[in-house]
């Protein structure tokens, strides 16, 4: 006969010295883990509660401007710096990392500055404003001895170009040295020429915003005051595509990871995501804001975007989801006119009417700084187990809970009541008519009137 019993020698299972690592053994057999689903549910509940405990999204406010902030620009080459411009012509470069102070000022504009953009190599800052000027500045290189906090340097513009009309927006091409300004018409400029290289006129309404495509250097999207969104190819002489909507679009952002898709921030409080090639219907309608959406910016991962709205809140939406995953608001933050998602996808910067720039965390309960690999694994596990059970009522209630300021809460309740009443009436109208005569329009096409070309 052959006999074998379990015999374990202590050396194999314990460590020799205290400097050695403890050995860990795994057996994934489910019969060793009774009630694993209940334990997982309990862990998901604890993870949801902990997330809420650690949710402190507000990092700090940057004070300095003397009038409401009208626009901001990110420097693609330098993570810590952000440019902001206000309604009285004041342009500043901020260091948002540790000191949250102004590093450099660019005085010169006489009226409100309406557009700010930085070239892709980070050397040239372009600004335009209601004083009909386009100014080019050279961005100061950050040096190691730059710890002199008291001296706020100011620089002279490297070039000033004048236009006939007030300018409303500016954007720089992703590769190359062309930039586009929007005003009474759409102009394409070169850094070195004092007159626009190319001009596009379209109807009698002014062009409100411009955005170059990150993937194709010659394509840009604009929105105009007569509720159009137009896509131009600068190698052609007229618009490639035009979409007419019911209300005007305040801002457009292209998805950096899927450059054929763009999202338009509209005056009716919704954001519409379009596929640039197929414009008859929106890919997705993002509805959560109560008032006009003023600005929109995509995260560099392409999976989320941040919007700032006239209703004093900043919301973060998933790129394919209809509702926001997060809302940030403060009593002191008034109308938000511009938002930016930082280039490392960790922070969100909002500039608002109360002359402050505010820095928020993109994930409210994220632990900043260097995280040990064991901590990282635990965070990932918590996230995964919470997502697994987040449809169950107890956990859903905790995960979804957000405090809304009273005006927004009331406005949402009112709009919900109005929508319910409208839907009920439409259902009854449908029931009382011959089948097929009354057709419900889908949300994706509801606000689009037609597509031209």
């Amino acid at each position, binding site marked *: *006969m*052959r006999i074998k019993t*379990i015999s374990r020698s202590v050396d194999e299972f314990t460590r020799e010295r205290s400097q050695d690592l403890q050995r860990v053994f795994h057996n994934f057999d489910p019969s*060793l883990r009774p009630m694993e689903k209940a334990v997982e549910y309990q862990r998901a509940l604890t993870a949801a509660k902990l997330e809420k405990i650690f949710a402190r999204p507000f990092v700090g406010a940057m004070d300095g401007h003397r009038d409401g902030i009208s626009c901001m620009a990110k420097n693609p080459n330098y993570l810590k710096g952000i440019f902001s411009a206000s309604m009285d012509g004041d342009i500043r470069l901020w260091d948002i990392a540790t000191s949250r102070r102004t590093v450099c000022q660019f005085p010169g504009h006489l009226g409100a500055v309406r557009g700010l953009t930085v070239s892709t190599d980070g050397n040239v800052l372009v600004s335009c404003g209601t004083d009909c000027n386009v100014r080019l500045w050279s961005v100061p290189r950050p040096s190691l001895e730059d710890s002199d906090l008291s001296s706020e340097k100011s620089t002279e513009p490297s070039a000033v170009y004048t236009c006939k009309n007030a300018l409303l927006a500016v954007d720089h091409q992703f590769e190359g040295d062309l930039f586009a300004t929007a005003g009474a018409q759409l102009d394409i400029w070169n850094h070195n020429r004092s007159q626009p290289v190319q001009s596009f006129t379209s109807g009698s309404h002014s062009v409100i915003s411009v955005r170059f495509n990150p993937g194709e250097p010659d394509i840009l999207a604009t929105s105009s005051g007569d509720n159009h969104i137009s896509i131009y190819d600068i190698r052609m002489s007229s618009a490639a595509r035009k979409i007419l909507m019911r209300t005007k679009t305040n801002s457009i952002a292209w998805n950096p990871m899927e450059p054929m898709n763009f999202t338009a921030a509209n005056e009716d409080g919704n954001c519409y995501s379009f596929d640039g090639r197929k414009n008859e219907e929106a890919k997705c309608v993002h509805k959560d804001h109560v008032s006009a959406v003023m600005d929109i910016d995509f995260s560099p991962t392409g999976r989320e975007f941040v919007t700032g709205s006239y209703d004093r809140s900043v919301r973060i939406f998933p790129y394919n989801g209809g509702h926001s995953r997060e809302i940030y608001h403060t009593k002191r933050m008034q109308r938000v006119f511009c938002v930016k998602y930082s280039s490392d996808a960790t922070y969100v910067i909002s500039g608002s009417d109360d002359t402050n720039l505010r820095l928020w965390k993109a994930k409210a309960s994220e632990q900043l700084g260097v995280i040990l690999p064991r901590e990282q694994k635990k965070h990932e596990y918590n996230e995964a187990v919470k997502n697994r059970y987040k449809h169950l009522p107890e956990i859903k209630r905790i995960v979804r809970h957000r405090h809304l300021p009273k005006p927004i809460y009331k406005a949402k309740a009112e709009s919900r009541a109005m929508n319910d009443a409208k839907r009920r009436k439409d259902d009854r109208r449908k029931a009382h008519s011959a089948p097929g005569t009354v057709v419900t329009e889908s949300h994706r096409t509801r606000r689009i009137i037609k597509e031209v070309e």
Partner: protein
Amino acid sequence: MEVALEDNNLMEKVLPPDEQEIDVELEAKEKKYLRGEGANLESLKDKKLKTQLASREKLYGKSAKAAAKIEKWLLPASAGYLETEGLEKTWRIKQTDIAKEVRETVRDVAFLHNDQFFAAAQKKYSYIYARDGTELHCLKERGPVARLRFLKNHFLLASINKIGQLHYQDVTYGDMVASIRTGKGRTDVMEVNPYNGVVALGHSGGTVTMWKPTSQAPLVQMQCHPGPVSAVAFHPNGHLMATSGKERKVKIWDLRKFEEVQTIHGFHAKTLSFSQKGLLAAGTGSFVQVLGDSSGGGGGYSRYMSHSMVKGYQVEKVMFRPYEDVLGIGHSMGWSSVLIPGSGEPNFDSWVANPFETSKQRREKEVHLLLDKLPPETIMLDPSKIGAMRPSRRKERPTRGEIEVEKEVAIEAAKSVEMKKKTKGRNKPSKRTKKKKELVENAKKTFPELEHSNIAGKKRRIGEDAAAELPASLKRFARKN
């Protein structure tokens, strides 16, 4: 070129026989790690949800494959075995072949979540002691306790006392979660099912009842034996239960169908215990018998090994040691242990139970256990129901017409019952008609809703059955659920 490609494809399909066997074996192991069937995604209409769930199912498949491979190749130890050659029988092999304070009555002892604490059911009250013997708590509320058991995931100390009261106490903050009057009298057979945390009591009438702390009535009542139940034991996978009765039978039950799977005749087992690998130890008198399952599902328990002690030593309790091939026997003169190859799980998981843990690891584990403490509401017969979807009500409420039809059928059946003709002057016609009327009344009583609606009779909102016949424009007046 094309010919070469075809050859490659052919070669891939025909594997050598060894690899084919390994594939089949791995697939069988994978099933264990998949924990049930995958979801049916065909009926989903939402495309986004469908793709998300499909990618998740793929991930589950991959992780199950990886776990199966790990189990096959990477686990350090293998299980014990006892193989006989030729005509030898395993039960004839003896142990010699294999190797060569409280001064009052303590009725039961149970360890709490650690080896640092244990609870003892003493003569008058139960006490909780630390490892070195210092008394920590005196549990007066329960009275004299016959059996104590600890539910590990819920941190509940369950006990049954002499008058048949079941008490559950949460040991983290001392609250008595439930005290249930079983109503079945005195019993001292109590076991906890490790798979779902349900407490089973064996009664003197031969019933086994299963309890959970949130309800006053038992979950299940099974009539197991004609006489009193003397021992109950649960298989660690939660599907099998062994009971023994005084009529010299040990029965194995399947707990999913509540059916008897096997009966073993011949001895009255005072104590039963299952090992991690499914071996069943039964102790009677001074003799301990270990049964092994030859078939996978639990129906083929047969003699594997046996051990007889010195005559006169009465075996009180047997218990398998987890993760070792050892069976502990508690008897009237003390305690002894025997080796049973193949009874313990050879590979332990350090995060679940580590026999070699240091004190630091033990403290960390205690904190994690406390964080994962389950509320008593999670104790249910099928613990995998948590997080599952409620099955949709496919059968709708029967309409009024259907109920009437059923009622007619029941009345007809009651009327057509053959009445037994009684003799010796008890066959009066008046009594016969009275009895028949009673039967018809009873049949009508099972349909009370119609009675009430007949009585009401006033103008009321149209019921659901009529709603189906309404035109679309009047549907809003139908009664809403």
